[in-house]
């Protein structure tokens, strides 16, 4: 029997009916059409499904959708303001942090969650934030460089 799920995704309020066994990732991708969060390992290992739930980076493949009831979800689709990319997105482009792109939504959400809580992280803290996010093109260094550039203020408005 389906249950009611009320939550906010990228600032928009939704009222849906979902199967209790539906995972947050399933609802975002299949019911809301937000395919940024990627389905990959399905076992809480690779980080490609990372979204921000109530201010925290979480793996949407390993949370029941109903556990997000009443919550606020941010996916990669909610990062840009209309056509204006988020500073992290701009930096990822400038620093070549995107190769095949499969890990990118997860990397962006994991690093966004970090910067929201800690705008001045050390390199070690940046590495820790993406520790669970696998990139098989091995683009970690360019991702770290991009995040560092945002931290240094290279992408602040007016610059």
């Amino acid at each position: 029997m389906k249950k009611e799920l009320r939550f906010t995704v990228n600032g928009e309020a939704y009222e849906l009916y979902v199967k209790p066994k539906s995972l947050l990732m399933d609802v975002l991708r299949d019911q809301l059409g937000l395919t940024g969060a990627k389905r990959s390992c399905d076992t809480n290992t690779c980080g490609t499904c990372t979204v921000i739930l109530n201010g925290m980076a979480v793996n949407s493949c390993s949370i029941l959708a109903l556990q997000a009831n009443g919550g606020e979800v941010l996916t990669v689709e909610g990062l840009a303001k209309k056509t204006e990319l988020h500073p992290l997105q701009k930096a990822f482009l400038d620093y070549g942090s995107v190769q095949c792109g499969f890990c990118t939504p997860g990397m962006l959400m994991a690093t966004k969650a970090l910067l929201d809580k800690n705008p001045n992280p050390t390199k070690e803290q940046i590495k820790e934030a993406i520790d669970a996010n696998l990139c098989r093109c091995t683009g970690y260094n360019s991702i770290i460089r991009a995040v560092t550039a945002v931290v240094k203020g290279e992408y602040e408005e007016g610059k």
Partner: protein
Amino acid sequence: MIRDFEYFAPKTLEEALTLLDKYQDNYKVIAGGQSLLKLMRQGLVTPQYLIDIKGISELNYIKSEGKKGLRIGALATHRAIEESPMMKNGFSILAEMEQRLAYIQIRNWGTLGGNLCHADPAQDSAPVLIVLNANLRIASQKGERTMAIEDFFPDYLQTALKPSELLAEIQVPAVPPHTGTAYAKFNIIENDLATVAVAVSTTLSSGADVCQDIRIALGAAAPTPMRAKRAEGVLRGKKITDNLLTEAGEIASAEAEPLSDINASEEYRRQLIKVLVKRIGKEALTRARQA
């Protein structure tokens, strides 16, 4: 593919206990679900009723009670414990353990109580809580009981919880004076589950450099988290020397019952236990002398 189940999300402990009492054996409790959902996806756990306690805010807290120690609600997340300013002095070992427990995404949602109730012998939290002499407060409609955490794991992936009982709180007593604690997790991939984990707490008698009390706990060294009591016996009441630590390591290695699996053979695990008990025992001793 996860099998269908009937879902309940009680908002209070009382509501949860009523549901547990009503559904007895056919339910499974989910907190953060970071381990459980994997098992459900593989069809290894197929509950008829899933009782989701993650939203019970009265079980999500970390409180410091001075000389009485810490009280941690079963639903406190790993990340909250890791970042809590209360994890200092003797409790810093808890934060050290949490910092290496899986990854931020998992620590943000996974709970300490859920981790304990999953009862994986390779889990990170049990060995540390065993050497800290923690107790568990268990609630049911019939009332409450408290038990030592070392008695909580009767067998592989099993807990001492009876039907209708819920783990409500982890109580960590204040660390006695002149006590040092240390923890090590050995694995091939950093922050993965332990190949072997060792935690040691050593209390020295005041003035003399004699081991008044010692607790040694092992993870991934048997079908359950375990205390190496015979190894403790080698050190208790003695002045700890390198030779004695070597002997304690050998005895701990012998009293462990490690399994062979994809990560390591039994023999390899026994060797790790021997080395790590000595190494971590020494670290705990150094910290006890500084405490």
